[in-house]
């Protein structure tokens, strides 16, 4: 099997899905830590943003890498979704879980597409926008609007659902499964997914409800 055949095989695609998933998860963790600067006030948050942008050419380099990983994850996800749909041309009249599926695993492709839409809006809100004002004000301008705050909260709930399966699933895809660690891996990955989502969700919630947040 050549390398090309390997990555096109079912298991190869799942491994690439897991590896790109790990990269996106790590990005999400770093993004979450960066965002949590908002809880220390606008000064801390703006200083963090400035520090980040002072990294020079590393920033666009990282952005391009991230874009590539995102595109790979999305492309593979859609390919797998279409292939899997074709693998059972006639559906069952009655579908009932035997007990393995979770709300997260059941909805993976759909939550993925919702996240993609969210990403576009998110980038338009904060990346492709006027950066002459401090980032804390940009955040306030967007998230003080209830419609946007609600949109972000629901989109982040979808992210939580997606990674509630993804964080565990990537271990299994890479062959990491051992009775001694399985319970820890399962509850640990779920806990990490929920905690991370909570950090992100606190920001629109605080901006909307606390008048002085990021002032």
């Amino acid at each position: 099997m050549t390398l090309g055949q390997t990555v096109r095989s079912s298991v190869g695609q799942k491994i690439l899905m897991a590896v790109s998933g790990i990269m996106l998860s790590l990005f999400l963790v770093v993004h979450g830590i960066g965002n949590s600067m908002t809880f220390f006030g606008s000064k801390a948050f703006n200083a963090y943003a400035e520090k980040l942008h002072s990294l020079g050419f590393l920033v666009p380099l990282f952005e391009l890498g991230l874009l590539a990983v995102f595109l790979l994850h999305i492309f593979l996800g859609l390919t797998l979704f279409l292939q899997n749909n074709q693998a059972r041309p006639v559906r069952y009249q009655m579908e009932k879980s035997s007990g393995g599926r979770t709300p997260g695993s059941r909805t993976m492709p759909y939550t993925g597409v919702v996240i993609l839409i969210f990403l576009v809006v998110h980038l338009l809100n904060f990346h492709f926008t006027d950066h002459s004002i401090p980032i804390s004000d940009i955040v306030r301008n967007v998230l003080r609007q209830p419609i946007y705050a609600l949109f972000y909260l629901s989109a982040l709930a979808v992210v939580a659902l997606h990674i509630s399966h993804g964080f565990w699933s990537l271990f299994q895809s890479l062959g990491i499964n051992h009775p001694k660690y399985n319970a820890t891996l399962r509850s640990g990955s779920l806990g990490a997914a929920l905690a991370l989502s909570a950090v992100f969700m606190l920001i629109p919630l605080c901006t909307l409800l606390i008048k002085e947040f990021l002032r």
Partner: protein
Amino acid sequence: MPSTKIDINLKIWRQENPDAPGSFQQYSLAGLSTDMSFLEMLDVLNEKLTLEGREPVAFDHDCREGICGMCGAVVNGQPHGPEPGTTLCQLHLRHFRDGDHLVIEPFRARAFRIEKDLVVDRSSLDHIIQAGGYVSVNTGGAVEANTIAIPQQIAEQAMDAAACIGCGACVAACPNASAMLFLGAKVSQLALLPQGHPERRLRALSMVGKMDELGFGNCSNERECEAACPKSISIRHIARLNREFIKAALFAE
């Protein structure tokens, strides 16, 4: 538990041949003993249909004691019915209630062809085995059993995987119609034992390649397979298959 009599309403998939369009037909059976197995209930139905001059329902069965892997149908959305770790032939009517409505469908997947009614051609699983699920050495005379030391734990794990009866319930249960639990069990059972080691890398690659070629879906770790498996085979064996595949894909010459 004393045996009682119950009535069951059935909705069964009827299909004349692989190319005919199928449809559901409804049947009612009264006064069935709860000691009866699911297949015995179908026997009762078929006897009734035959006496009425109608075509009996075709279904797969052989040993009727849960070890051959021949029987299997999807009952109310669950392969082999609602009882965990049980084949359809070992499912008894005591697990159902009087007046229950049961929808019985064949195992469905692109890689499985419906021959007639509930009879499904699962020879694609045999083709996966033919692609590498064996040890190709001339064994010669039997050596003394303890010549090759195998730890008890490893032997038990290999046996857990070897419990697979190849019934296809994992494929039927998988939302993606993937055969990864079947494959995982077969690859594990050989990879764990010294006799299977020489060919382990090629085996993982060629069996996965064959599975893809036959039109099965991709594993997305939904865990439906292990929940539906009549032998309760763990997805731990899928993880081992993944490890075997990664090692083989990276390092096999």
